[in-house]
């Protein structure tokens, strides 16, 4: 077994990713003015949790930076720092730096220290700017109290007295007091005394009980909030008394903090005030003054907890394999159910009978289970969309353009495997939109467009597929130049007549880059063709529409899941096969006069002026020794990788259906010409054709020979 710590560490980094995403979403919401109070808190919590976790793994650089970040966020939260666009700009960049630090910590690589230092300096600046009491008093704190507090802040540099009595729950939640004390030491010099006076005889000792109290003298000029932070995760499970050094106007235990926005309340001094009491010994029993005050924070904290719990819905992490196994089984359940219905029908049981009715009920249930199981794998595209704002900021900075990213439909759900694989094409398309699509800022101003360009990213469901659109309000495709370039590269003939649409789609051809100069952002002409290929590998399609002067829109259409495939059910020499629909261009009935022999076994089909090689599926898969008569067959024009075409000949087409993809390699091995398998409605296995291999097969003699060679040796 591997190091258990490594697993925890991995979980921490996974959570960091989520928190970074939340942080960014929150900050953008604040920037757009759509933020609520809870947003600020969520942002703060994200940074704070990362800091806490990083502390456990001794990721000091991360902790230090998160702390600076958190301090500034806290000021916003408490209202002492206004969230101006400038401040939010700093925050957004800081979020990027934080992400880099997390990444560096994960990969154990070094980070750009200069960048971190610059960021820290920027924070110092905004922190200093708000040091001078801001004209607008803190939102939640009474103005008078705020003033008092500020005044008190200045004077704090002698010892704080903290009494910390954990309850059993604290230990039960796997908190460690030593870590808390160590954390406290970061704030300043501490002097710790352990009070074990409540410790019972060994015979009466409950091994899971809590009996100890620590009295801590902390010499630090930090504020109470900083101390409270150290105890933030354990505050509910301990009795905590914090006594300020010089209680001017403060009464011990009456300064309270809530989780959602800091709140300071100052109670009038009680009649029989004990000036600066010695740390109350032996709690429990709690000190006389504490109950009234202590009850209050408890309520506050609970309210805050409830609030944050409402914002974050409960989730669990599940191994993907388990979900896949379940999907397999449910698919099988559906097939079995159908077979059972068939048997019942065959047995001559009346449709209105109890058995048939119960079966119908079962059918509904199984369908519902299937839908819910598929929904487990479905995830909103948000996780991918959240990575884009950073990309836009960086590319915008590199290209010296002003860009605003607008996203829509983040909640659109799609299978997890698809999510993982759309990030790259999307990244490329967005880079492309900014680098090549948008005009330079000067140019935009010159032609009367807003200086800030807009890139729009939209996700939506359309007829059982997910559609992603990346549009810009730039210059649109320069058709003259694309055409010129295509002729130059020999892609099209100089006199070819192309529609606007056809010209636009030329950019998906290999080695095509229209940018006047090659930039390091969008690469060297390995651009949209790569995108198109990776999209095609997912069973998707990409297209572009462009209006000169108004911008371009790339439309990406993908299947909702990679576990199922739209296929054409065909038969070849009595064998049922599935051909992926995404590969099929058209179906036709070949005429004898269009078929020409190329060599002794390869025929070509004359098709609209070109010749396309023909592949007899049954023969090529060794189902049959002889060749099918072309005019007796149905021909499917298919397109393989890189746009290479071939005509596949089959006996008949039986229709179209969605099939669940099953691996052949799991229990067997790869079979040339076969991509995967699936289970049909009758419970039998049908094979899914590997169109690319078929097309290659038709094209290369060598490949044909090699792939046909079958070892029957032992």
């Amino acid at each position, binding site marked *: 077994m591997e190091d258990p710590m490594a697993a925890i560490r991995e979980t921490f980094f996974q959570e960091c990713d989520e928190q970074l995403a939340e942080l960014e979403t929150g900050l953008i919401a604040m920037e757009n003015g759509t933020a609520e109070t809870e947003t600020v808190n969520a942002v703060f919590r994200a940074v704070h949790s990362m800091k806490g976790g990083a502390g456990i793994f001794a990721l000091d650089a991360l902790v230090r930076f998160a702390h600076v970040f958190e301090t500034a966020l806290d000021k916003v939260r408490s209202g002492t720092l206004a969230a101006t666009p400038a401040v939010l700009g700093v925050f957004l960049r800081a979020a990027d730096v934080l992400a880099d630090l997390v990444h560096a910590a994960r990969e154990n690589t070094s980070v750009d220290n200069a960048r971190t230092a610059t960021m820290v300096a920027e924070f110092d600046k905004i922190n200093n700017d708000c040091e001078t009491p801001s004209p607008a008093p803190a939102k939640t704190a009474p103005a008078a109290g705020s003033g008092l507090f500020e005044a008190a802040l200045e004077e704090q540099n002698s010892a704080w007295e903290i009494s910390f009595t954990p309850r059993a729950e604290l230990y039960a939640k796997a908190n460690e007091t030593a870590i808390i004390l160590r954390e406290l030491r970061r704030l300043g010099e501490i002097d710790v005394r352990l009070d074990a006076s409540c410790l019972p005889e060994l015979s009466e000792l409950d091994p899971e009980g809590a009996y100890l109290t620590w009295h801590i003298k902390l010499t630090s000029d930090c504020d109470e909030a900083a101390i409270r932070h150290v105890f933030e995760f354990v505050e509910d499970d301990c009795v905590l008394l914090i006594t300020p050094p010089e209680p001017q106007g403060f009464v011990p235990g009456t300064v309270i903090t809530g989780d959602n926005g800091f709140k300071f309340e100052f109670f009038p001094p009680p009649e029989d005030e004990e000036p600066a009491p010695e740390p109350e010994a032996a709690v429990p029993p709690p000190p006389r003054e504490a109950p009234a005050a202590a009850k209050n924070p408890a309520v506050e904290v609970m309210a805050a907890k409830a609030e944050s719990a409402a914002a974050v819905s409960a989730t669990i992490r599940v191994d993907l394999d388990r979900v896949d196994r379940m999907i397999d089984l449910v*698919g099988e359940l559906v097939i079995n159910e159908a077979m059972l219905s068939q048997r019942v029908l065959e047995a001559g049981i009346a449709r209105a009978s109890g058995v048939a009715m119960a079966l119908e009920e079962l059918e509904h249930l199984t369908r519902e289970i299937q839908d819910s199981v598929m929904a487990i794998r479905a995830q909103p595209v948000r996780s991918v969309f959240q990575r884009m704002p950073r990309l836009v900021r960086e590319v915008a900075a590199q290209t010296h353009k002003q860009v605003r990213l607008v996203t829509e439909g983040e909640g659109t759900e799609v299978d997890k495997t698809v999510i993982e694989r759309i990030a790259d094409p999307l990244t490329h398309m967005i880079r492309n939109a900014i680098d090549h699509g948008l005009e330079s800022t000067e140019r935009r101003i010159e032609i009367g467009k807003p200086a800030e360009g807009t890139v729009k990213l939209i996700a939506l469901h359309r007829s059982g597929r997910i559609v992603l659109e990346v549009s810009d309000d730039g210059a649109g495709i320069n058709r003259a130049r694309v055409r010129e370039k295509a002729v130059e590269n020999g892609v099209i003939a100089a006199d070819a007549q192309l529609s606007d649409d056809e010209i636009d789609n030329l950019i998906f051809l290999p080695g095509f880059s229209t940018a006047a100069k090659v930039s390091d952002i969008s690469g060297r002409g390995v651009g949209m063709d790569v995108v198109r290929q990776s999209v095609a590998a997912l069973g998707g399609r990409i297209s572009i529409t462009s209006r000169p002067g108004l911008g371009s829109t790339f439309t990406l259409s993908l299947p909702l899941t990679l576990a199922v495939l739209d296929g054409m059910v065909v038969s070849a020499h009595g064998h*049922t096969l599935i051909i992926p629909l995404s590969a099929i261009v058209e179906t036709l009935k070949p005429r004898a006069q269009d078929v020409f022999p190329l060599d002794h076994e390869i025929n070509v089909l004359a098709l609209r002026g070109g010749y396309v090689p023909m592949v007899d599926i049954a023969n090529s898969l060794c*189902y049959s020794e002889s060749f099918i008569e072309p005019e007796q067959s149905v021909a499917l024009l298919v397109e393989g990788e890189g746009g290479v075409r071939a005509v596949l000949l089959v006996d008949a087409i039986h229709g179209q259906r969605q099939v669940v993809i099953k691996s052949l390699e799991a229990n067997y*091995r790869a079979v040339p010409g076969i991509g995967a*398998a699936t289970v049909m409605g009758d419970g039998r296995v049908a*094979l899914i054709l590997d169109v690319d291999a078929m097309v290659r097969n038709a094209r290369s003699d060598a490949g044909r020979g090699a792939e046909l060679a079958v*070892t029957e040796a032992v």
Partner: protein
Amino acid sequence: MSATIQADPANQAGNRELIAFRVGRQEFCINVMMVREIRGWTAATRLPRSPRYVRGVINLRGAVLPIVDLAIRLGLPASEPTARNVIIVVQIGQQQVGLLVDAVSDILTASNASIQPSPDVTSELVKTFVKGLLPVDGRMISLISLDNALPRELEAA
């Protein structure tokens, strides 16, 4: 549980449980721990460009299971399978494979001492598969190894 136990019986002390089955007129046995389940014959989907002894694939609760016709694999006369034939689903390493046999005949407990080495013959098939011979009530049961039951991965073309 793993195939190595089969491959090297000499290392194992004590008794072993074996499952015996008939293929044609011969009886064979394998370690019972390898067996996942036994089921009736269902029509398999033929795989193109596969050795003749691979009958094809069937659907085993959503997984695609290759079927090896042991008669052909062991060089015995082949016959078309009927509903009376049996598929023994075995685990070989990471893969599950269905073995097409005529019938399951027995479950035996055998000590290592009672397993006799197979005679030194030149037959490649015997060398590849037969790991020992077991006399039971006047019958001879061959203990076989399944390590080479499936065709190896294709060489990268």
